[in-house]
């Protein structure tokens, strides 16, 4: 186990700079998820941690030791790849035992550790098989076995579940979490799936275009996003955004969208007339009397909840409610928003007000 410090890391490919001074502190035993859209630099950062990419500037330390110029094999890390990267010509036993073989451990020790890892991952009866004879989930577990058998200081996971079907992904998510609880090793995990990030992480690092947008616990990011990017990225379905300004409605102040829709405002320092983006999560929009009347565009029931898309002028609002709604598209419903659930962002900079 070890802490990891990423300090002002920069990555350049020739003249193009793709990472711009990224800094992240990872505590000993923490499960940190790097999340962001494709091309945000999360995998590059993980590969720099693994020693598979050079660091152009800044430092990366593992367990207090700067590892910028340290070879991957000397970093005491283990990595699980998106494609699993199992050695196709080796059996499951030899795949899991490969890192120990490279470390010149005795045959007896290799056998003991491989069997131990196989038991943890329920792979004992597959040890003589080749990777091509395994299912996706089993291959994934072999890749994890190869990682845990070394007892490394840090585990690195590069989108390990993206090749699995939805059901298996949920199962493997739980298995990885259980593994973390059992081993207590520091984990750095890359994904583009915010649900994976929210459900697994102790700490999430949201990245965009080679920069860190926000670092925090899953609920902290959900409740207090610093900008529209984080607000829109974290949470599923994603947050509603309506563009408009602060206006007065008699004695009180309200939000008025560009198409004239008036919505309740929370306590804010924003001045009257200021251009803002109004953000509210779909699950914070309720249906009720006295709410803002909007026209239903579509109703999507999933059984446990119903997602409703409604329109007022050019503004679209997405609501996620527990009730089963029989309203048809074209009819009107009242939508209630609690001002306490509203986030206001500066329209120009996108930063939270």
């Amino acid at each position, binding site marked *: 186990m070890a802490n990891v410090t990423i300090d002002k890391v920069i990555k350049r490919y020739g003249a193009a700079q793709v990472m711009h001074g990224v800094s992240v502190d990872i505590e000993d035993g923490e499960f940190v998820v790097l999340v962001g859209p494709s091309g945000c630099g999360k995998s590059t950062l993980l590969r720099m941690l693994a020693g598979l990419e050079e660091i152009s500037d800044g430092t990366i330390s593992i367990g207090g030791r700067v590892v910028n110029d340290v070879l991957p094999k000397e970093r005491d890390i*283990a990595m699980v790849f998106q494609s699993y990267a199992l050695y196709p010509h080796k059996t499951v036993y030899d795949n899991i035992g490969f890192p120990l073989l490279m470390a010149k451990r005795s045959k007896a020790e290799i056998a003991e550790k491989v069997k131990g890892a196989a038991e943890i991952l329920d792979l004992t009866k597959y040890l003589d098989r080749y990777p091509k004879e395994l299912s996706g989930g089993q291959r994934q577990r072999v890749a994890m076995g190869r990682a845990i058998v070394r007892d490394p200081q840090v585990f690195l996971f590069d989108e390990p579940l993206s090749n699995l079907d939805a059901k298996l992904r949920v199962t493997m998510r739980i298995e990885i979490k259980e593994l973390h609880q059992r081993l207590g090793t520091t984990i750095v995990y890359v994904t583009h799936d915010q649900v994976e990030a929210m459900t697994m992480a102790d700490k999430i690092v949201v990245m965009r275009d080679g920069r860190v947008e926000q670092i925090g616990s899953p609920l902290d990011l959900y409740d207090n996003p610093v900008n529209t990017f984080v607000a829109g990225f974290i949470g599923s379905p994603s947050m509603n955004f309506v563009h408009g300004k602060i206006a007065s409605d008699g004695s009180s102040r309200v939000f008025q969208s560009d198409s004239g829709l008036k919505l309740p405002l929370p306590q804010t320092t924003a001045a009257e007339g200021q251009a803002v983006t109004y953000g509210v999560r779909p699950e914070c929009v309720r249906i009720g009397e006295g709410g803002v009347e909007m026209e239903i565009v579509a109703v999507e029931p999933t059984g446990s909840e119903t997602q409703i898309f409604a329109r007022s002028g050019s503004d679209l609002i997405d609501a996620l409610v527990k009730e089963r709604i029989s309203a048809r598209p074209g009819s009107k419903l009242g939508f209630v928003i609690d001002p306490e659930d509203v986030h206001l962002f500066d329209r120009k900079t996108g930063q939270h007000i």
Partner: protein
Amino acid sequence: MRKPSPIIGLIFWSLVSLLTLFPIYWLFVISVKPAVQLFSTPELILSDPYWGNYAKVWGDRLLRSYMLNSVIISTGNAVICTVLGFFACYALSRFNMSGKESIFFWTITNRMAPPAVFLLPLFLLMTQVYTVGDWKLLDTRIGMILVYCTFNLPFAIWTLRPTVDGIPKELDEAAYVDGASSWQVITQIVFPLCRPGLAVTLILTWVFAWNEYLLAATLTNFNARTLTTGLSEYVTTTGTAWGVMATISVFTLIPALIVFGLVQKHIVAGLTFGAVKG
């Protein structure tokens, strides 16, 4: 859509096989006939074979030394070309070098000209330049191995490149993270995975050298003469020993057939390797 009857396919491919294999059969027929019967009315079905040609060829010490030369030269050439070709492909596949695609293209250019073009310069190099005291590369086994390497190494690089490119780089990276050195990545991961391609390259370069006549006939006199050049010695002013020549040809053919048969599975796998995304 109706599937065509397998009988038609069977008949078609049997005919094609017959056409392809008939010259080999006929070569064998000639080799087991005495000289007097060679130009009589041909018999399709072999009766009363005559093994005198085989006894003559096998008993000829000179021909046995030619065969040994052929084995050593072909094998040496094939091993060197395959090993060096593999390392060249690994470098081309895994490392960023400026102009590497140009290097890859230009390596094959010497296969674009007829080998006869290189005869004079090679002869001069082997007699005038590559010499140590009185020792010359001309008419030596190592000389012939190197000559064949100049032609077969580019071919080996071209054959092996798709194979090495087809091994995902993530496997190298996984092995590096698992604690392997560069040498261990090559020997334990990439090399074993390239086996089908390596087998194809080994066999084809071996066969090219084994069958080659022009360079061997020009660049050897006595010590390093190969079996193919031995054939020409039976065309003399007093006549051509067809039966003996056919027997030598059978001897030339047998090792190639055995080697092909042994690695046939790998050859098919190697030729189609990387053709489709796995």
